[in-house]
């Protein structure tokens, strides 16, 4: 897991608007971003992203799994949205956005599938069998629909609504635990796959969910906890994610912004 060091050898070359949070500036950038991430790439890929976004991290993981060079561009979302982002994703105005030869692809899971299809000679994240692909898509969609939203309610809300979010989070983790079973990765025979890439970025958020929800993932879903540790050691994941402490601090920043106690 990355623990962000204050000094970076290469800040991503951002075209986004100015930073406005000096106290977070030093440790906001992906200081351990792979060297290939700052080269103007021969595969003509640019990723508009935000350092702590689990959705952006899915794409970083996929690009790393495929050893695809790309230009990483940090969008300072707390300060506003750049012209480039607004033009690349006018509908949702969100990161991540992948630009391939200047053409935008939006939405993290769509981007990951795109990378599989546009770069068929690289290791694929989806398996080859149609039924296995369908199950992978289903579970990645499940993670997409459930985890971030429920997690957000856990740290945003209090009282009964928070208790409800907690109950839902436990259910989500148990459901994923059942799906993982005794497999090393969600991808099963395929190995590290689409669902692993979809869910791995949430593993640093577990500590925050645990603190706000007052539970332990290791107790509620021990196989998921073990998977999180395993997956965190994988190179593509390790270099894309930030430490649980950084995530926890970031949530603190968001809470202040939203005026939440």
């Amino acid at each position: 897991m990355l623990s962000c060091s204050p000094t970076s050898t290469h800040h991503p070359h951002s075209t986004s608007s100015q930073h406005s949070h000096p106290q977070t500036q030093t440790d906001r950038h992906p200081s351990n971003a792979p060297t290939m991430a700052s080269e103007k790439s021969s595969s003509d890929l640019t990723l508009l992203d935000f350092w702590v976004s689990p959705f952006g991290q899915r794409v970083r993981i996929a690009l790393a799994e495929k050893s695809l060079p790309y230009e990483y561009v940090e969008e300072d979302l707390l300060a506003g949205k750049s012209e480039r982002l607004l033009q690349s994703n006018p509908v949702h105005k969100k990161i991540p956005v992948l630009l391939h030869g200047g053409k935008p692809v939006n939405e993290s899971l769509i981007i990951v599938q795109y990378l599989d299809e546009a770069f068929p000679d690289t290791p694929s994240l989806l398996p080859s069998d149609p039924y296995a692909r369908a199950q992978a898509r289903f579970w990645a969609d499940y993670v997409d629909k459930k985890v971030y939203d429920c997690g957000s309610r856990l740290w945003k809300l209090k009282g009964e609504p928070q208790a409800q979010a907690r109950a839902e989070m436990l259910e989500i983790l148990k459901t994923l635990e059942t799906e993982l079973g005794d497999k090393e990765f969600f991808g099963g025979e395929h190995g590290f796959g689409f669902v692993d890439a979809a869910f791995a970025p949430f593993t640093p958020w577990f500590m925050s969910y645990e603190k706000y929800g007052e539970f332990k993932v290791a107790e509620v879903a021990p196989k998921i906890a073990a998977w999180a540790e395993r997956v965190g050691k994988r190179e593509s994941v390790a270099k894309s994610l930030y430490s649980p402490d950084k995530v926890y601090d970031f949530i603190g920043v968001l809470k202040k912004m939203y005026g939440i106690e």
Partner: protein
Amino acid sequence: MSDAVELIGTFTCPIVHRVEVALRLKGVPYEFIEEDLGNKSALLLKHNPIHKKVPVLLHGDRRPALCESFVILEYLDEAFPDQRPGLLPADPLDRAMARFWARFIDEKCWGPAWVALWAAEGEGKEAAAREAKANLALLEGQLDGKRFFGGDRIGFLDLVASGFAHWLGVYEEMGGTRLLAEDGHPALWRWAREYAADATVRQCLPDREALLAAMATSKERFVSAATAMARK
């Protein structure tokens, strides 16, 4: 492995229709198992314990069953690649766009449309109607002069949008809110007519009166769902 296909669904649901048309376009025989969403069957709950929704596709002995319409549509395209190929376009960028707009349809069109149609006055109903109409206009832009979203032939995005071509009119009549009209969305209106006139589609389009009759008791369920959504 048996290859019989069963589709658990209901004719009142436009999401199920997406899959039914795909099966017919692909020439895949199937058995349709009608579900009562107001009183969900043990079969449905067994095969879709997570979302408890239709459509659910059972293909031979493959278990667990396939759930979620986008997952099922992509599966059909990949499992039956030689039969009416290319529900999804061939080019990776076009495929990414189709997937993007499919999600847009469900999240940004149907989402606010459902609130606009069924929520009580003053529960964000008017704002939702404005949002739905604006997003339908964005979707309409994707037609870009083509006969269908898929080009000359019906494709993945046409199937995903199909609810607007038939069911929306019925909901509008039930709920009293108009969202899609010729003057507001001329291209989408024209597309709706083209889609509904297609020979394969017509086999799966339930009669309007039958829909109205079948959904008469569903309105209460729609209203509480929409009210809950409006409060989020």
